[in-house]
C-alpha cells in the first residue's frame, strides 16, 4: 500500500484554557485523491487546517504529511515544508491586490525553491508555468496577466488563486470554502477545472466546505463532525 499523503493519529487539540476542540482518532488522505470534507463553521475546520499546515501543533497524537511528522520539524522547517508541499485556496480575497495576476500566481515560487524548480522543469520557466496554468483555467488572455489582481471578478480571482495553489505541483492542495462566493453555475465549473488541474499536476485535493450539494462530485466525502469525537451534538 502506498504512503498516505495526510495521516492523523489520535490527534487532540485544544486552544489554551478551553475544552478540546478536535479529537480525531484516525484520518487519511491518499495520494491523488479528491476528498470532500464537510464542516460547518465553528466545527474546528480552520483549526484542523492550521494543524495540517503546521501553524499549530497538536497537544497529543501526530500529524504526518508525506510521512513526515510535523512536530519533529522546527518552526522554520515547518513553514518551508508547508510551502514546498501544499497549495492553498481560501474563501475569497486570496490575492495581493497590488500585484499583477501573473505575479500573484508566481508567489509560491518566490518562497519555495522546490516549487520554483518543479514549475520550471514542467513548463520551461516560472513565467510560462503561470501563464499555462491560467490558460488551462480559462484565463488565457495575455492582457489579463498584467492587470492588477483586484480588477478581476470574484470568479476570475478564485481561478487565479487555484493557479497559484497549483504552481510547482505541490502534492497537496487545500481548498477552504473556495466556492462560497461563487454562484451555482460557476461553482461547478470551477470545481471541475480544479479537479482537472489537480489530476494533471498529480496533486491530492482536500476540499473543505459546508455545502453538502458539492459532495457527489468528489471521490470520497467525509464529515468533520463524524471524524471528530470532541464535536458537540448538533442542535436540532
Amino acid at each position, binding site marked *: 500500500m502506498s504512503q498516505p499523503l495526510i495521516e492523523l493519529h489520535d490527534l487532540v487539540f485544544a486552544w489554551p484554557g478551553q475544552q478540546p476542540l478536535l479529537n480525531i482518532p484516525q484520518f487519511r488522505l491518499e495520494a491523488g485523491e479528491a476528498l470532500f470534507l464537510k464542516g460547518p463553521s465553528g466545527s474546528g475546520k*480552520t483549526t484542523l*487546517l*492550521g494543524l495540517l*499546515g503546521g*501553524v*499549530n501543533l497538536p497537544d497529543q497524537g501526530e500529524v504526518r504529511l508525506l510521512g513526515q511528522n510535523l512536530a519533529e520539524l522546527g*518552526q*522554520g522547517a515547518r*513553514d*518551508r515544508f*508547508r*510551502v*514546498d508541499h501544499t497549495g*492553498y485556496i*481560501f*474563501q475569497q*480575497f*486570496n*490575492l*495581493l*491586490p*497590488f*500585484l499583477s495576476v501573473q505575479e500573484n500566481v508566481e*508567489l*509560491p515560487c*518566490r*518562497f*519555495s525553491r522546490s516549487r520554483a524548480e518543479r514549475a520550471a522543469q514542467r513548463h520551461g520557466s516560472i513565467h510560462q508555468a503561470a501563464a499555462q496554468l491560467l490558460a488551462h483555467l480559462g484565463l488565457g488572455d495575455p492582457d489579463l496577466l498584467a492587470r492588477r489582481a483586484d480588477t478581476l471578478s470574484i470568479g476570475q480571482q478564485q481561478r487565479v488563486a487555484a493557479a*497559484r495553489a497549483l504552481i510547482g505541483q505541490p502534492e497537496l492542495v487545500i481548498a477552504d470554502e473556495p466556492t462560497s462566493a461563487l454562484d451555482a453555475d460557476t461553482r461547478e465549473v470551477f470545481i471541475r477545472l480544479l479537479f482537472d488541474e489537480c489530476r494533471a499536476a498529480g496533486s491530492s485535493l482536500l476540499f473543505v466546505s459546508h455545502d453538502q450539494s458539492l459532495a457527489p462530485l468528489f471521490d470520497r466525502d467525509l464529515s468533520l463532525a463524524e471524524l471528530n469525537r470532541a464535536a458537540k451534538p448538533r442542535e436540532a
Partner: protein
Amino acid sequence: MYLLRLALASLANRRFTAFLTAFAIALSVCLLLAVERVRTEARASFANTISGTDLIVGARSGSVNLLLYSVFRIGNATNNIRWDSFEHYAKDPRVKWAIPISLGDSHRGYRVMGTNSDYFTHYQYGRQQHLQLSQGRQFANDPFEVVLGAEVAEALHYKLGDTLVLAHGIATISLVKHDDKPFTVVGILQRTGTPVDRTLHISLAGMEAIHVDWQNGVPARGAARISADQARTMDLRPTAITAFMLGLNSKIATFSVQREINDFRSEPLLAILPGVALQELWGMMGIAEQALFVVSLFVVLTGLIGMLTAILTSLNERRREMAILRSVGARPWHIAGLLVLEALALSVSGIVAGLGLLYGGIALAQDAVQSNYGLFLPLAWPSPHEWTLLAIILGAALLMGSVPAWRAYRQSLADGLSIHL
C-alpha cells in the same frame, strides 16, 4: 530581493500615505541639513573673516566690542585713539606692519573705512588671502577717491568713475551728508565673503578732508566752509583714528606686545588677539546655534514618528495581506523583513527627497543669502559630518521600523494562515 519588490508594491498601493510620510521625512531632513550647513558655513566664514593679523588695537572697551566694530563693522567705537599712539607702535621694531582704521561714516547703509595703502598690502582673510582688485586701482594721492567692496558695487550698481557722496554717521538714512566733497570710484575689490565686501575704503586723508571744516560735530556754515579743492591743498594728516591692526615679525612677541599696549602710559589702549576674540564671540552665538540644531533634530524625530504611526496604523488592515503571504510560504521573518524594508524605503526616499529640497533650496537662495547675509552656501556634496547625520537618521528609521516589524511578526505567528474577514 523579492521582498523589496513586495514592499515597494505594497507601498505603491498606499501611495498617498506613503508620499506624505516620505515628504514629512524629506522636510525634516532638509531642515536639519540646512541648519547644519548654515551653521558650518557661518562658523567657517566667521573664522575666515580675518587672518594673519596678530593684534587689533583700539580704545579701551571690551574685546568683543573692539572686534565687532573693527572687523565686522558692527556697533561703534567708544572712543578714538591718537595718531601718535599709532605711529609709536607702527615704528616699533617688533612690528612688521600696521594698518590704521578710521570709521564713523557711511554710504547708504554701508560703512566707510579710512585707511592707507598698507591695508591692501597686508590685510588678510580666509587662508592667508590678500585683497585683490577686480577693477581699477587703489586710492592714490587725491583724497577724494574710494575703493568699493564687491557687494557695495554690485548692490548699488557703481562702476569705475562714478561719484558718490558719503554720509556722516552710520544710520541708513542720514540727514547730514558730505555732499560738498563727492568721491570718485577708482577701484572695486574682488568678493571675499567677509565684511570687506560691504565696506567703502577711502584714504585717511579723505576721511580727514570731509571733516576738516567740522566743528564740535557739526559742519561749518557760510564762510567757514572749506571746498574740496581747498581741502586738497591742506595738510590732511589725521590726528585721531579708530583702531589699528598689527602684524608682528615674530609670533612669540605677541603676548609681550599685547601687554605693553594694554599698559600704554599716554593713552588707555586695548590690544586683542583676533582669534581669541572670535572664539569668545562665537561662544556667545553658540547657544543659539545649538538650540537651532536641537530643534531640527526634534523635527527629524517627529518625521520618523509620523512614519512609525503610518506603518503601525496600516498593520491591522494589512492582516489579510500578511496571511496571504504566509499561505504562499512567507515565514514570519519575511513579514518582519517586509516591514523593515518598508520603513527603509520610506526613509531612504525621504532622505533623497530631503537632499533634493536642500540643493534646490540652496541653488535658489544662494545669491539672496550671499548678498543679504554675506554667507556663501556652497552646492557641495554632503560633508562627512552630514553623511554621519544621514546615517544616524537612517539608523533611527530602521530602529523605528523594527517596532511594527516585531508586532507583525507576533501577529503573523498568531494569525497563521487564517484570514479574518
